[in-house]
């Protein structure tokens, strides 16, 4: 049975020059990973910080653990764990000491060693935090978020700026959390991260929610699209010619041509004979399934990483 842990209704936060959060509503079910996906400046962090109690909303309702709150209460704070986008700590503290500090803030907390083990920092426990690598620091931040054994964990872009290895490390931790039945609220601008980890993906842009669904649900909405990609000498290429086939709008990215189509067989056949006729070399030709990136593109006309 699913149970709503958090409900956000008609949340608004306007700044003089920008509508950071523009009337958004969503809800999160217990034990799921909910992801806010969107480019930088979409309003993800503002949304998160309103829910965490850092910022005040102009308008809107938040129902947290079944209770309607104007802002997160101290009692609710006992039950949540937070990792902010910036991972700074009081300077000159050791890993262990940072955890001890955060443990002291809560009524109940996990044993420090357990948390250290969970984020795999056993060997670093007596090192100063400022001496750690970016990925290790991020794990300290996540450890701090877990210290009170929270029911719900907020992770604001936990993998931004990390190398793939460190990123996979963090993914492991999040999957582990999910396995423990915790609810995770994640923000990210990496679509593969959202796709891999989330139960629900909420796509945000310019302060508005443009779509909420499961990752596969999002992709299904694109229909039976497939993507044919290849590299070619663009000067010899006439896009209009390609667009005349049974395809969605053809896209060019660098020297790469991307053809979205619902009729894969026909397009492939046409493409190969067309290339032969034109004596064109098709390099790195590939066919792939649509992903969240394509979803975002189809919804906004822009790419996430732009």
């Amino acid at each position, binding site marked *: 049975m699913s149970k709503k842990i958090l409900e956000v209704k008609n949340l608004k936060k306007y700044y003089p020059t920008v509508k950071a959060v523009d009337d958004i509503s969503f809800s999160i079910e217990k034990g799921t990973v909910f992801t806010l996906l969107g480019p930088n400046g979409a309003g993800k962090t503002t949304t998160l910080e309103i829910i965490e109690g850092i*910022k*005040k909303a102009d308008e809107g309702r938040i129902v947290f653990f079944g209770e309607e709150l104007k802002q997160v209460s101290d009692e609710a704070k006992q039950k949540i764990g937070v990792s902010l986008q910036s991972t700074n700590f009081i*300077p000159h503290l050791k890993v262990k000491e940072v955890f001890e500090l955060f443990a002291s803030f809560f009524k109940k907390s996990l044993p420090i060693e357990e948390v250290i083990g969970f984020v795999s920092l056993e060997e670093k426990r007596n090192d100063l935090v400022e001496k750690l690598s970016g990925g290790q620091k991020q794990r300290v931040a996540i450890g701090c978020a877990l210290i009170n054994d929270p029911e719900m964990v907020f992770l604001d872009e936990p993998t931004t700026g990390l190398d793939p290895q460190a990123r996979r490390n963090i993914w492991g931790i999040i999957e582990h959390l999910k396995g423990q039945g915790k609810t995770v609220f994640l923000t990210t601008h990496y679509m593969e991260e959202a796709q891999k980890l989330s139960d629900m993906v909420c796509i945000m842009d310019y302060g508005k929610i443009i779509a909420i669904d499961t990752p596969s649900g999002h992709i299904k909405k694109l229909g039976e699209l497939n993507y044919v990609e290849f590299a070619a000498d663009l000067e010899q290429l006439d896009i209009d010619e390609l667009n005349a086939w049974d395809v969605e709008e053809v896209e060019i990215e660098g020297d790469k041509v991307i053809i979205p189509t619902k009729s894969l067989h026909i397009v492939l056949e046409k493409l190969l004979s067309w290339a032969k006729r034109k004596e064109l070399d098709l390099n790195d030709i590939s066919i792939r399934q649509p992903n969240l990136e394509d979803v975002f593109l189809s919804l906004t006309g822009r790419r996430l990483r732009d």
Partner: protein
Amino acid sequence: MRNQLFKSLLISGLREKETIFWILLFPLILFTIMVLIFSNMTGEDLNFKMAVIDHSGDGMGSTIIHQVFEDISTTENPEDDPLYSIIDVKNKDQALVLLKEQHIDVIVEIPENFNQNFNKVVFFSKISSISTDNKPTIIVESVPMRNLSKLASDVMKQILAEVNLEAAKRMNISIPDATISTEMVGQTQDFNYADYFLAGILIMGFFSTGFLNMGINMTYFRRKGIFKRFACTPIKKSKLISATILSNLVFMVMSFVILLIYAKLFYHVTWAIFYPESILFILISAILSLSFGIFLGSVSKTPNGASGLANILFFPMQFLGGLYFPVFDLSPAVRWFVYINPITYLAAGMRQSMGLMDAPLPYYTLFLIPILWTAVLLLISVKIFKWDGGEIA
């Protein structure tokens, strides 16, 4: 509940080598320098280098003068430096070169007609009828821009004035005797520089904590999102503020205790700093310094900005606040700053309550002005303080 936050802030501060140096160690260094410099100004350790050029030949006058010079250039203990060391020179030109090149501080010249005039005055004429032109004259040359040279010349003039009195006695002119004693006004305790600077450096140490540690740290915490992170936990803001204040207070106490132990051990300061009124001023200093810390932490956006502002405020405040030298007789161009500077009142108040010197200010202002400053600073801070670059209430 144990206060882990306070403990963490304390540990963090103590691991910051800069904090340790500026708050705990630097006051000791400064105290030592100031006491040494000013105690030395009483002149016990002075040694002037003098060149004597005598054109006068043998005679009674010059013999007396040389006798005097002999006295002031020898000491009982050969290891001590005499007040004047006489440097041999061949002629005036050489002496001038030595003076120019700072090898000597003063030149004393006995002119050719010195003995002649001296004899005239002593044996042949009534003194009063001798015109100044014909009096035996000694020429003292110095470089007034150089402190030591100026002092050497001034002291020499005093010595020669004494010589006159001595000569008058030998001539059986009766000169009334006088005794001179001194009394300090506005001082209930024997003055000593160590106590004087203990008060000044103590305040300096306190304000270093507020300006250089607290304000900059608060800005750093906000800037780096550390305050924000705390806001997501159930910890009360009041607790965060009190832990910040408490940890800085501990730095002040440490600074105070270390300085006091040092000053007690090596400079034998009195216990006057523990008079009830002195303690009151110590407390006000601590509170005002914390207020400046909070103020800096509120107005500055970045730690670098806080550090710049702290230095711009703290430098004139400490130098024009009477911590290191008296400021009430400074030129009018800066006196206004002296009077608006709260440190002036704290330093003056502390020293008055220690019985070192009365402040030339109405008694109530000594408390009122610093407290007024505290109130204004806190008021402004409350208005503009933010936990976050954003707008949490």
